[in-house]
Each structure stands twice: as structure tokens, then as C-alpha cells.
């Protein structure tokens, strides 16, 4: 058996030969590869960085692209017919401006050599030129790995929480909204207003960050749900403190908490985000057992009387309504968001709405109104809005699902169905 170092060298040589081969067809050959020290190059962070930066390569540079994996770690080779020097300049800009750019090598091969960036890159740890520190073995592997892991985690955690914040604000700023709180109206919620919602949002953001951290660092997905449930309860407590007990985002803490945790887990473990729903099903497989426990909550009553599983059921099934809602959220325009919300109201199970509607018959007829509105291209929007406020209806559950749909859109999940019948 060859030593691991030799296997890495063999793998690297094969890559070089592959680049020479591709050079016969393309003017420039780009290599996208994580810059990870140590003998094990096939670690989670390598895959994460390689995939992340592959997506940042401008499309005009990608005529051909192929993915490889081996002892030297995962990498992409990309071919195009642009001038190698110009390509290198643009890639240096990506490396230099991205917070994690130091951990990726975007090399350009011109047939004879890798185009040099002119200057040596700096060491991960200190300000010296990297090659000197490597040659002199100046820093321990553990020290370097810790720096890489921390920076990569901090980056993705921060970006994810920014997306959470953005998604909540996109929903909150939408107007009109059928009795939900907007910047101009408290709707059917006399105990709430815009400022209160913003305050509540700010109070729960740090808990989503904690959940992200749990998803990132947990190895056994079976334990995830129990861990974040505790964090969720603390989030609720904190929210109640700033809202004086008004339940602004309790449902959201539950739903989006599950989604953020699952997203973090699949991101770190190199599972494609399309599989996040499959993963959520696994993660929440014991959720409906809640209904077996003695429980006097309204949600429990709705389940036993009408078979409505509400928010729990939606999570348990891997958020099928949210997945379908992505088809309606074509962009982030007001119109798309409204249409998505109308869809969510018509299609989701909402036990809070059931409570406010008073009876299962009224609950169903409200849903039918929204279904009709969706069919008629939202012509009766203003009318619906008035009716909901008058009847004090609340669609908080659907608002939560809209926030989740926005989150999914922003992390790059695409709808897989083309909506012919709603474009007429």
C-alpha cells in the first residue's frame, strides 16, 4: 500500500495530466480546489468550499465543467476560450474579495504553466508569505485547521442569519396582508404592531444562530431535534420578555428553526440542498408522537377532532406546502409574495385560523375564498383583505410558511415545476 502522501501526489499528477488534455480543446483551463493542509483532503470543509466557489465562477467562463474527487480532495476543472491572463485577473478578484477566498485556489492553466498571481499569497495564520511558513513548518496543523474551520463556520452562520432576517422582513413589509401585521396596519391583531414584530424578530435571531451551530456540529441527525427544541423554548421565553407575552413568532421559531438546523446540517455534510426536505422528515420522525401525550392544547384538539396536524404535520411531512409554494415565488416582487401567501393560506393547515374562524365549516369556506382568488388572479384582493380584518381572521401560520419559502428561495432552492396555468 502506498502512503497517503504518495496517493495525494499521484492524484495531483493525474489532475495535471487532465488539465493538459483539456487544454487541447480550450484556451483556458480553470481549476477550483480548496486549499486545505493536512493528509486528509477529503474533509467536509473541502467539499463545502469547492462547491461554494464553483458557483461563484462567472458563467461566461464556464463552457465545460467537470467534477472530480480523489486523495488530493474534490475539485472542478472548467474550460473556456477566453484569454488565460484575463481569466486569471478576474479569478484573483474573487479570491481576494471573498472572506473565504484565502482557502480556495482558482488556478488558470494556459497549456504551459499555471498563470502566476505575481505575488505570493499570505499564510493562513501570520502575515508572512505562505510558502515560507509551509517550508519552515512554522505553524501546527491543528492551529491552521482551527482557523479554517472557524472562519468557514462564521461565514456561513452569519450569511444564513442575514437571510433569516431578510426573509422575516420581506414578509413583515408586505402589504396588504389579510389581517396580518404590516408597516401600515395591525390588521386583526390589536395587541401587535410593526415595531413589536421587529423587536420580537431581533430577540429570536440569536437563537436561530444557535440552531445553525447545532446543525453544523452534530454528527447524529437523530439527536438534532431534541437539541433545538430546548433552544426554541428559550427563544420563546426571550421573545415573551420583549413583547410582554405577545406571541409574535412562536410558530416561526418552530418551523424556521427546523429548517435552519436542517440546512446547516446538509450544508456542512455536503448533501445537496434539494435533499433538505428528505432530511427534515428524518429529523422530525417522532414529532407526531406529541399527539399521543395527554395535551389540552388547541392544536391537539384539532388533530383528534378533524385530523388536522397543523404545523407539526407540515414539518413531519418535510414541508410539502412550502415546497409547492416555491413555484409561486417567481421573484421577490410584491406580487409574487402576495400570490405565494394566498397559495399558502389556501393550501396549508392552520390551527390558529381554525380557532379564530370558530368552526370547521367557516375554516373551510375561508380557505375556499383564497383558492378562488388564486384562480382568478387575485382580482378580489382588497375585498378579501377587508373581510379578513372584519372577521378578525389570522393567518400567522401561513405567514411563517411564507418566511420559510423566502428563506429557501434565498439559499438558492429552485422550484421544479413550471406554472403554466397561473400565467394565463
Amino acid at each position, binding site marked *: 500500500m502506498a502512503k497517503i502522501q504518495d496517493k495525494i*501526489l499521484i492524484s*495531483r499528477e493525474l489532475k*495535471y495530466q487532465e488539465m493538459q488534455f483539456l487544454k487541447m480543446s480550450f484556451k483556458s483551463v480553470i*481549476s477550483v480546489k480548496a*486549499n486545505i493542509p493536512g493528509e486528509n483532503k477529503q474533509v467536509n470543509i473541502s467539499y463545502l468550499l469547492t462547491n461554494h466557489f464553483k458557483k461563484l465562477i462567472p458563467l461566461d467562463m464556464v463552457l465545460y465543467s467537470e467534477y472530480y474527487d480523489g486523495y488530493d480532495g474534490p475539485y472542478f476543472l472548467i474550460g473556456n476560450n477566453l484569454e488565460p491572463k484575463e481569466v486569471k485577473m478576474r479569478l484573483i478578484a474573487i479570491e481576494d474579495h471573498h472572506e473565504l477566498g484565502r482557502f480556495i485556489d482558482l488556478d488558470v492553466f494556459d497549456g504551459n*504553466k*499555471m498563470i502566476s498571481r505575481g505575488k505570493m499569497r499570505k499564510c493562513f495564520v501570520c502575515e508572512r508569505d505562505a*510558502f515560507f511558513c509551509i*517550508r519552515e513548518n512554522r505553524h501546527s496543523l491543528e492551529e491552521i485547521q482551527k482557523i479554517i474551520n472557524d472562519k468557514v463556520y462564521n461565514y456561513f452562520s452569519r450569511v444564513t442569519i442575514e437571510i433569516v432576517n431578510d426573509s422575516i422582513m420581506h414578509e413583515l413589509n408586505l402589504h396588504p396582508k389579510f389581517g396580518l401585521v404590516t408597516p401600515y396596519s395591525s390588521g386583526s391583531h390589536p395587541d401587535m404592531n410593526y415595531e413589536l414584530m421587529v423587536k420580537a424578530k431581533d430577540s429570536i435571531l440569536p437563537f436561530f444562530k444557535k440552531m445553525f451551530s447545532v446543525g453544523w456540529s452534530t454528527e447524529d441527525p437523530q439527536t438534532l431535534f431534541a437539541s433545538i427544541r430546548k433552544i426554541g423554548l428559550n427563544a420563546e421565553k426571550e421573545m415573551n420578555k420583549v413583547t410582554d407575552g405577545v406571541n409574535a413568532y412562536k410558530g416561526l421559531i418552530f418551523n424556521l428553526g427546523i429548517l435552519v438546523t436542517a440546512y446547516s446540517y446538509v450544508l456542512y455534510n455536503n448533501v445537496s440542498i434539494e435533499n433538505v426536505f428528505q432530511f427534515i422528515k428524518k429529523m422530525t420522525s417522532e414529532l407526531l408522537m406529541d399527539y399521543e401525550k395527554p395535551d389540552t392544547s388547541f392544536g391537539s384538539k384539532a388533530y383528534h377532532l378533524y385530523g388536522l396536524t397543523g404545523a407539526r404535520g407540515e414539518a413531519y411531512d418535510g414541508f410539502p406546502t412550502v415546497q409547492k409554494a416555491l413555484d409561486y415565488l417567481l421573484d421577490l416582487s410584491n406580487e409574487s409574495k402576495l400570490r405565494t401567501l394566498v397559495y399558502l393560506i389556501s393550501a396549508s393547515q392552520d390551527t390558529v385560523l381554525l380557532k379564530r374562524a370558530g368552526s370547521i365549516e367557516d375554516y373551510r369556506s375561508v380557505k375556499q375564498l383564497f383558492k378562488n382568488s388564486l384562480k382568478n388572479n387575485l382580482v378580489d384582493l382588497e375585498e378579501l383583505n377587508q373581510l379578513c380584518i372584519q372577521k378578525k381572521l389570522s393567518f400567522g401560520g401561513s405567514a411563517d410558511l411564507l418566511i420559510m419559502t423566502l428563506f429557501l428561495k434565498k439559499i438558492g432552492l429552485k422550484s421544479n415545476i413550471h406554472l403554466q396555468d397561473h400565467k394565463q
Partner: protein
Amino acid sequence: MKIGIAGSKESNDCLVTVKESKTTNIIIDSIVAAFFYDQIKAVIEETLKELNIENVTVVVEDKGALDYTIKSRLVSAIKRMEKSV
């Protein structure tokens, strides 16, 4: 003429070319030559001695490879040279 090539021009690697010649020559083109030329040359000389190889021209195009890598690339290049016709 017998010739062998091994390695790559990637960062932290080197491309080593070995060919037969009347005397032994070592040519090093390294991005860290100003500081590590002697060290790289010593690795090559030691490796040639270990393998009992004389009268070859060794060209090393170094992109910041460590001694282990330089030695390993040189050994492969020599093996390939000996197999070549």
C-alpha cells in the same frame, strides 16, 4: 534519448524532468529559490546518491513543494526515464 517527467505545476508541487547527459547537472527554478535553493539542491543530490544515479540533467520547476514531494517526484521521474526507450 532517455527522459522521464513527473509532478505538476500546481501550488505546493513541482515538475521534475530527468534526462541522460554526459555529466550531472541540476537546474532549479523555484518561487522560493532566493531562500531555499541550497536546501532543494541538497535534496536532489542526496536522492541521486541514494539511487546511485549519475550523468543526468535534472530540471526542477518548483511551485513551493516540500522536500518529501521533491524527492518523490524525482524518484518517479528517474523510474520513468529508466523505462523509456
